[in-house]
């Protein structure tokens, strides 16, 4: 009796352990473990990313999934904290048996999660964080980024400034950006690219307010004194809004060209500032609702608006493309379980994204796992097609991926 009870218990225990595996093995599901900040300042990007990822999943599953596999994503608040996100990622891998880690807005969190991805050999699709390190010196085989890195934005920025010199001469430049890796990387990468292009410049000021600094008044008055021809900004999100609102009455934006190539052109700036946003600011972003004017991009912005009631920030496009990248890879391999084959498939990924102009398709760079895409920089001008924004970007300058990707010697140097 005792023995049979024991056997029963063992069988029951084994069943408990084995059934989830059996279910996982039988159900045809592509499991994605996504992490996005959903509270605080970065919450807007996280919530937009979740909405866009769900939109892509609904589109794909609505057409019968991929090779009979349906996509199932779980979204967890990363709280924008690396240590917490590491725990979530580990749980996704060990308990939920996800095929893909996905998401992340903050580069700090991205750098932590890529380490978990490497240790567990689970593919991590980066959709929004921009630190170049992830695809250069900290690159690992299971990490892929579908949005651009800061190097690409700043290389495009340097090309823009070089062209500007030919039409309207400038010599002095100042920088203001948040005092952490993201802010410092942008400035270093811009200077590196200006030097590489042989553009002469004189730095007249460098300012490092802390992230989420509420009050920039003292920085603005100091920048007015410095009188740079070009004021380069490395803020993101609400910090850009606060800085511009405080700079406007001081006439800073009339005295210097406001130049913000990585996150300045994000839609939330236009939507938050409305009529207050001055014309003539030179801004860039990872995706624009009004460029390129293709059916795919128009449809993306309109569908997002239909789902959420508002137009997307650029974070949304990264998550949307990320889901399609997974679908493409699984389609090529035939199943979501063969990780090494999926890595190969992602290395050869070609994908029509909302940010691709006609005649161009984004593609993966195999040696860095960084998606190659066109970079565009625009100038603020009146445009009421995307309310509540009343100013949007226009007068675009477009840069090809081969001109803005980190050059091989840069990668070699960083990977030493």
């Amino acid at each position: 009796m005792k023995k049979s009870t024991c056997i029963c218990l063992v069988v029951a225990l084994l069943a408990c352990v084995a059934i989830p595996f059996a279910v996982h093995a039988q159900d045809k599901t592509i499991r994605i473990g996504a992490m996005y900040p959903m509270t605080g300042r970065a919450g807007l990007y996280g919530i937009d990313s979740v909405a866009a990822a769900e939109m892509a999943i609904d589109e794909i599953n609505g057409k019968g999934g991929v090779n009979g596999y349906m996509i199932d994503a779980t979204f967890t608040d990363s709280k924008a904290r690396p240590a917490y996100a590491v725990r979530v990622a580990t749980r996704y891998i060990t308990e939920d048996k996800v095929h893909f880690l996905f998401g992340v807005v903050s580069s700090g969190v991205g750098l932590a999660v890529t380490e978990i991805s490497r240790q567990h050999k689970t593919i991590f699709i980066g959709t929004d964080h921009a630190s170049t390190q992830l695809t250069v010196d900290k690159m690992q085989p299971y990490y892929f980024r579908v949005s651009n890195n800061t190097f690409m934005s700043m290389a495009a920025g340097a090309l823009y400034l070089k062209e500007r010199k030919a039409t309207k001469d400038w010599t002095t430049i100042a920088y203001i950006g948040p005092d952490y890796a993201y802010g410092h990387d942008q400035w270093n990468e811009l200077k590196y690219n200006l030097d590489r292009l042989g553009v002469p410049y004189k730095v007249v000021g460098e300012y490092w307010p802390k992230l989420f600094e509420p009050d920039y008044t003292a920085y603005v008055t100091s920048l007015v004194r410095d009188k740079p021809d070009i004021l380069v900004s490395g803020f993101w999100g609400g910090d850009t809004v606060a800085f511009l609102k405080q700079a406007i009455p001081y006439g800073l934006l009339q005295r210097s060209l406001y130049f913000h190539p990585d996150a300045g052109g994000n839609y939330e700036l236009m939507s938050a500032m409305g009529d207050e946003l001055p014309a003539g600011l030179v801004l860039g972003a990872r995706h624009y609702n009004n460029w390129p004017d293709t059916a795919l991009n128009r449809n993306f912005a309109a569908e997002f608006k239909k789902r959420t009631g508002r137009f997307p920030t650029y974070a949304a496009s990264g998550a949307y493309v990320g889901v399609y990248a997974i679908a493409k890879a699984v389609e090529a391999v035939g199943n979501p379980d063969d990780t090494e084959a999926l890595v190969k498939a992602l290395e050869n990924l070609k994908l029509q994204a909302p940010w691709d102009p006609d005649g161009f398709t984004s593609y993966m760079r195999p040696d860095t796992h960084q998606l190659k895409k066109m970079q565009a920089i625009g100038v603020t001008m009146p445009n009421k097609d995307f309310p509540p924004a009343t100013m949007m970007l226009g007068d675009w300058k477009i840069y090809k991926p081969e001109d803005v990707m980190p050059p091989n010697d840069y990668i070699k140097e960083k990977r030493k």
Partner: protein
Amino acid sequence: MDATFIFSQAVSGLTIATLLFLVASGLTLIFGVGKVFNFAHGSFYMIGAYFGYQFSAVWGTNFFLSLILTGICVGLVGMLMEFLFLRRIYGRANEGGFQILMTYCFILIIDDLVKLIWGTEYKSLARPPGFQGAFQIGDTFIPTYNLLIIGIGFAAVILAWYILARTRPGRVARAASVDREIVGVLGVNVPLTMTLVFGLATAMGGMAGTLAAPLRTVTPGAGIEVIIDSLIVVVIGGMGNFWGAWLGAILIGEVTAFGVAFAPKWATLFSFMILVIVLIFKPEGLFTRRKVM
């Protein structure tokens, strides 16, 4: 060094100081009278910004009327919070820990409520008509709205001085800050005094939020960003010392302004350095007289 630059940087410092003071004064007042450290005080600043946005940008109410309405509404929310929740934990053993935990919970709750009501998109409030321009002095501009903030800050200081020094409720509040029990024994309704003080303090925080909204970003999470700087001001001025908070705010505002101008790489360090020095050499606050035990 150009004199107009020094002047404009000093005005920048005063703008920073005034908004800091309006938040820090409430924090210090609540601590002084009730010995409550209201960690959620920044959240009242944030809902003040949202109320200001709702009244002024959405419903089209006059900016200054919106400012007053925000003060009243945020004050009522503050009194409700004190009456329904904080009052329950007064006098418990290790009350301080409970206060911090409970008020921290309110930061998260208020953040999420704001997100549910107004969404996560950044909101913006335009400067009121008549205060959109700037005075020009030589090569430098001084925005009229910044001067308005400084003016309102001074008015708040004078009004608060009058209430605290010259009116009976003010004297009761001051007495309660010295000894809650004795004041209660003398027949004063101490819990009601505490609720009113909480209301006044949160109303000031809320009005600071509305005043700051045209200069800053109205976003969830804005509360936690102002609370640290305000706490520095309160500690430097002396916990519970109203005038200390004012002088502390001016000190931090000006040090930040000139730090940015002359040592931009280290600018964010200075206020923390002052805090450390005060904590080591005069922990009761720069502007508090040392008590003789």
